[in-house]
């Protein structure tokens, strides 16, 4: 009697899990496994069916100059966007958490870039960066500065993309910091003030450590975003000039839907998944010890 009851409870539990599990397996786990499997096969056409090729796709990848180029672009892109957008987010959060007139308006203003779709953002920035007629060159021209072909110069194009991403993401991360700041007990600040701690000291030794769980969350999100946010490339540069602004995911899209090389796209995807997994696990392990959870 007792056993059958627990069994029924178990079945009941599984049934409750079933809808979510089906969706997850069908749209997340199965595609992931299928991608890994496909990366060991060749791309098939009607006349040349797909066949097992072992590590051939991976060897091709190691020899592929464009792959290394987009990978290094992506690393620079991550290094350029993540620290700055997090620092800006903390700064903005502290700013709009304090007493200031029209606080909600300022909060809204900081959050606006997050609401806009990336494609729209890219179209706006395209006309900022356009040489001669673009906003940046027009303002520069007002001060007598020479125009610059921002997106057409391999030396500046990645920097331009980094600026857009920071502009877009900092407001989003600010929201998390703002929520975290508001959950900090005000006694801490009063106590620190009684003890004579300066504002910077208080931030460094009290506020920032207490924000660490948020920072970890934001850091992982920012890291993932730096690999998965490529919408603006379609509008702004298409990865050019000469791959100077191509990111890994954009390259995967190109390989899959422009070159129709599904197998190689699967290979690149497998590498990207692996890299993201390693980074995420590393962050958890490295930062966990330094995080003070309440």
């Amino acid at each position, binding site marked *: 009697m007792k056993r059958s009851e627990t069994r029924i409870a178990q079945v009941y539990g599984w049934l409750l899990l079933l809808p979510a599990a089906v969706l997850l397996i069908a749209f997340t786990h199965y595609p992931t496994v299928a991608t890994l499997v496909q990366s060991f096969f060749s791309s098939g*056409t*009607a*006349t040349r069916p797909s066949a097992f090729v072992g590590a051939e796709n991976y060897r091709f990848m190691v020899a592929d100059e*464009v792959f290394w180029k987009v990978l290094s672009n992506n690393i620079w892109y991550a290094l350029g966007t993540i620290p700055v957008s997090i620092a800006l987010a903390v700064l903005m959060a502290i700013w709009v958490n304090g007493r200031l007139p029209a606080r909600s308006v300022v909060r809204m203003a900081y959050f606006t870039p997050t609401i806009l779709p990336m494609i729209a953002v890219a179209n706006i920035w*395209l*006309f900022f960066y*356009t*040489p*001669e*007629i*673009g906003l940046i060159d027009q303002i520069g*021209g007002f001060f*007598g500065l*020479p*125009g610059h*072909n921002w*997106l*057409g*110069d*391999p030396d500046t194009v990645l920097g331009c993309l980094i600026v857009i991403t920071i502009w877009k993401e900092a407001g989003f991360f600010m929201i998390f910091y703002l929520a975290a700041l508001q959950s900090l007990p005000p006694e801490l600040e009063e106590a620190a003030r009684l003890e004579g701690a300066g504002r910077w000291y208080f931030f460094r030794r009290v506020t920032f450590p207490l924000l660490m769980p948020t920072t970890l969350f934001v850091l992982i999100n920012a890291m993932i975003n730096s690999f998965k946010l490529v919408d603006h490339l379609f*509008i702004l*540069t*298409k990865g*050019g*000039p*000469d*791959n*100077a602004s191509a990111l890994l995911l954009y390259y995967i899209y*190109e390989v899959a*839907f*422009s*070159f*129709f*090389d599904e197998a190689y796209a699967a290979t690149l995807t497998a590498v990207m998944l692996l890299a993201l997994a390693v980074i995420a696990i590393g962050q958890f392990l490295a930062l966990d010890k330094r995080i003070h959870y309440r």
Partner: protein
Amino acid sequence: MSHLIKRFLGAAALAAVLALGQWSPAVAKVELSMYYPVAVGGPLTKIVDGLIADFEAANPDIKVNAIYAGNYNDARIKALAALKSGEPAQLSVMFAIDIYELIEQDAIVAFDDIVETEEERAWLKSFYPALMENGTTGGKTWGIPFQRSTIVMYYNKDAFRDAGLDPEAPPATWDELVAAGKKLTKTDASGNVERWGAMIPSTGYPYWMFGALTKQNDQVLMNREGNETFFDDPDTVEALQYWVDLGAKHKVMPSGTIEWGTLRQNFLEGRTAIMWHSTGNLTVVKKKAGFDFGVAMLPAKKTRGTPTGGGNFYVFKQTTAEERKAAMKLVRFLTQPERTAEWSIKTGYIGTRPDAYRTKALEDYVATFSPAAVARDQLKFATAELSTYQTGRVRKLLDDAIQAALTGGKTPDDALGAAQKQADRLLKRYR
């Protein structure tokens, strides 16, 4: 009571007859699905819907579902996905340069295998030969030209007057383009350029613009079998050198790459006196230019030249004989001279056949709007758009090489040499 039953039965019988009556023609009806892309501005879907409605009115036994499928890339992906899912379309408008990809996927059937009568065989030859180049390979015709464009030179006549040039004599050779460009380039007191002489876009579709420059140097980018490219040919290298020199040496064009998407705005705001762009922009430039503008053929080195661009009709292999026949009817209907003329006037695409330009409608249009005649006359010098097996990859190799040369990363010689080497590696197995 029995009276009531009788009436009910009568009504039921009537309903059944009516239902049958509606049912039976539907069984006999051939149903066609056609994907088509839209790559330029304007109410194109409406125009297509109108043409399809006309066709259905003229052919009551055929039903056509014309499905708008996004841009060229989306249309190809959707058509191929539909094919794999077992719910294929019967015909589709797709990028003219997708031909080798579609043949390799064994997705399409050659029109030579569908045509039956002598008259239909003659119809295959009724289009401009330049527009057929992208649609034929291995001695067979796989694509029928529909929405096709070329590159033309737009120029600002006011700027020409301002620079002391004859606004009715646009540059006709490479050297004239440089000379005119130097006069047209205007700098302010502190040396900043206010107006450039010329701009050739180098993002988005650099290979397309480059196809024009190579053709002008009397060279093509690939062979007709689609399995060999001529990227490192001296004439090809010279063409790229000229493009680079326009910016780096002659300073009539900004250095670095020039954005395809914003170039039209640059032209409309007078920041460049000349731009090379698709005929697809004609309508918008006409509407928005606040100055007197002209349209001319691209200049020549050894000859005039431009690649064609745009989309062709393809018929899929997974079709029944009736469906092929119906598809053929539809394609022939949409490419009749009068329809072609109507389509050309409404969209700005070029008329695909000489007799379309002899229709009253298009004759009148060309007489009042001379740029339409420029595109037509330039067709004599047109060549195929870059298209090979593995076309996406090969195209990207060339795009990257062009951009590397334009941004000064590599010399044209090195960049094209490397691209050719890699293209050879990709195409070897198709020879």
